[in-house]
């Protein structure tokens, strides 16, 4: 793992991830529509939407909002570069948290009551999933002896999932929060049921909102990458296995999104901490003591 490698990977990620993420978002909308008995939009609808956002009038509540959103996007892309460049998983986790922080600041800085409410909920969402994300990194370390993604993906003797299946299940649980899917889409939602659910993005419009969409695409690719990493090992064939699992996980998330009603923050916090404590704790204790 070298610095150059990661910087190159960051550039590649910056180009490819939005494309892949855009297709995934289009797929998401078609599958969701079919589940609801609709035909759904064309596959490239998310792309048309974002292109239209960039053509809109440049209006904002203040000038700082966009600066913070750009920072959030930069760190999301860098985080993707660190992961797909084979860098350190802990650094990857910390960088994506930094990205979330800037997004939260973007929402707060508008002083819109709706955006502030969304931002407050987002801090609770981060607090809910953060322990499990950290335990995921430690779990990989305990299973393979390294925090480096390149070393984990090339580990001899089978995928990490064999040793950290409970952690994998825990990550699946909090993945719903990270992908902003119902029932955990408290801070902002793609389903426009009510005003408060636009939460954090209430004041974002035009190009700024377009950047937020692109960031979401990048994050989706990164988080699905995390789930795939559980199934990689020295064998090249494992990449096919990982892709199949990622596809299944993606479908499962859409299914959950369409079949569960939004919960309150108390339930989200308690359930995800319980999952982290049990899934992460038992799995790590098992790896350390046995």
């Amino acid at each position: 793992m070298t610095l150059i490698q990661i910087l190159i990977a960051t550039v590649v990620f910056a180009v490819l991830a939005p494309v892949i993420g855009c297709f995934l978002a289009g797929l998401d909308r078609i599958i969701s529509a079919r589940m609801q008995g609709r035909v759904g939009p064309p596959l490239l609808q998310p792309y048309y939407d974002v292109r239209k956002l960039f053509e809109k009038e440049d209006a904002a509540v203040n000038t700082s909002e966009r600066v913070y959103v750009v920072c959030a996007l930069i760190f999301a892309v860098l985080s993707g570069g660190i992961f797909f460049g084979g860098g350190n998983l802990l650094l990857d986790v910390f960088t994506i948290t930094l990205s979330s922080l800037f997004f939260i600041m973007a929402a707060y800085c508008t002083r819109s009551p709706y955006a502030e409410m969304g931002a407050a909920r987002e801090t609770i969402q981060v607090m809910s999933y953060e322990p499990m994300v950290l335990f995921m990194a430690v779990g990989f370390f305990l299973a393979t002896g390294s925090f480096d993604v390149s070393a984990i993906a090339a580990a001899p003797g089978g995928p990490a999932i064999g040793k950290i299946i409970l952690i994998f299940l825990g990550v699946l649980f909090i993945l719903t929060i990270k992908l902003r899917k119902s029932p955990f889409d408290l801070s902002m939602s793609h389903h426009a049921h009510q005003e408060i659910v636009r939460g954090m993005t209430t004041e974002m419009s035009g190009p700024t909102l377009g950047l937020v969409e692109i960031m979401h695409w990048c994050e989706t690719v990164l988080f699905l990458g995390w789930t795939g990493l559980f199934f990689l090992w020295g064998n090249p064939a494992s990449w096919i296995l990982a892709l199949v699992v990622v596809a299944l996980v993606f479908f499962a998330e859409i299914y959950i999104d369409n079949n569960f009603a939004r919960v309150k923050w108390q339930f989200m916090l308690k359930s995800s901490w319980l999952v982290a404590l049990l899934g992460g704790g038992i799995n790590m204790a098992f790896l350390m003591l046995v």
Partner: protein
Amino acid sequence: MAFIGFLILFPLLAAVALFCVRNNEARNVIVVASAAVIAVASVIFVVSNLGAGFTPFEFSSEALDFVCTGISTAIVAIILAFSWKYKNVLAAVLACVQLVAVLALEFAFPLEIEVPYGLYFDSLSLLMTFIIGVVGSGICVYAIGYMEDFQTHQPEGEADRRPLFFGLMFLFLSAMFVIVFSNNMEWLFTGWEITTLCSFLLIGFTRTPEAITNAFRQIVMNLAGGIGFVVALYCCAFMVGTFSFYDFLVIGCQNPAIAAAAVTALAFAGITKAAQMPFHTWLLGAMVAPTPTSALLHSSTMVKAGVFLLVKLAPIFMVCPVPSLMVIMVGAITFLLCSFMAISQSNAKRVLAYSTIANLGLVTACAGVGSPEAVWAACFLILFHALAKSLLFLCVGTAEHHIGSRDIEDMDLLFERMPRLARFMMVGIMGMFIAPFGMLIAKWGALVSFAQADQVALILILGFGSAATFMFWAKWLGKLAGIAGQPENVELTVHKSEWASLLLMVVLLICGCVALPLISAVSVEPYIVSVFGVLGQDISTDNLWLAAICAAVVFIALFAGAGRSNSKQKKVPVYLAGVSRNDDTRAFQNALSGSSEAVTRNWYLEAVFGEKRIAPIGTVFNSVLMAAAFIMVLLGVGVM
């Protein structure tokens, strides 16, 4: 050795001068000059000895021993006088117990323990020297402007007691230097007690009933810790047979059984001074004091003496299970619960206090683990905590004097009312908890060391505690970031000395983050190697470089990006589900054509993370834990 003498004696001289001088102008000159001299001397001393291993100096004096006993007696006399005045029996009793024990140790037993090498320094002392000498004197300079505002806010006819205040500040620095340079444990103890007394007087400085109560809470807890220290001295005298700290550590590592009692007692003293639960209440109470006092107590002195002692003991913890487990668990539980409780606080100084206690808990837990990686992390936690926390306290102090409140809810719009200060505060907050700053790198080190030591409980605690940390810092940061119309800029009247020290802290913090690999190589790693002989697995330079890149982006965004005007962008009012009438107050036209104001507050989750709910758990758990550890050591159970 001349430098060590200078660093101990010069602040003492400055303190004496400041006690005597009544003239404001003269005092300001003395404070600035002495602070500059101390800072420069510390930096020269640190730079010229970079990477030094353990360097003892042959220095012993019977007379100095008697002087130390004299100082201890004088301290007790002062405490007794105050206890008499304010009718506090417990403090008086504890002080008397301590005095009797100290005098008995000196005169009643025919001990012939000589410590030929009375003074020393090593890389850890150098790190502490930097923190005390540069950060500590920076805070003293800041105090000039702050105390001037403070004095004008005092009621008419109130006596100007600033000579006492500044004298105590410099005395504090001197005592801290005694602690980090003394190899003779009796001298170390004297420095320890002076810091206790100084913080007692500084906390009670305003002499309001609340200040007096809190000062006595501090003195009772720290006298208990002091008695723990005396017990440790007895154990050293009768079981280990030396008062040399270095020899004690060496003997303790080779033969943990005979040192176990002394280590447990010393760890207890360190835990009280580092304000770990159940002793955290004294540090919370300390915030009634003027802000420079809080900054000094939290960042560069007092509590840092506690963790300094614990980090020094780390090699023994590694081989001595009972005190090790006690220190690990007390620190870890404190970290977790205080991070939780910080969520429920809206008073900025109280949030800072809880975060200090939580971070000290993490340092304590690292010291308890005692492995090279853990000590590496502990050293960085101490350094970056000192830098970030002093910056934050000074920012809050300045904000308090200019917006008239220390409540986070009142810091709305600070980004425009005090643009420079708000950005400094944001850097400080980010420095405390988020990548790519040093604090997080230190946490990273802690995580790696816990994973390698198979401490699953510690990893769980670190995970949940860090998540809580994110919550309480992020919502404060959000409050600061808010921007509306064009509120009046109120920071133009901030005193120059305050800007000077704020700037110093920001520059130190930023340099510290950027130069992190360098600091590790020249300062922390030599200490690890000199103590353990090996260097644990460290974080690769590539990762540190990536962190530096992130840091650069953050600083550019904060200082050059956010808040700039953009003529191309159209400015629109905030959406309020009605016609906006005033953006600054978030007023909108309601259904009856009147004006309504939208009001939002941050979330404090009182029902989940309230003090009433959380604090008793930690108090009971940690008290039982320490009691159990002492009983086990006394019975000799579990001691190898």
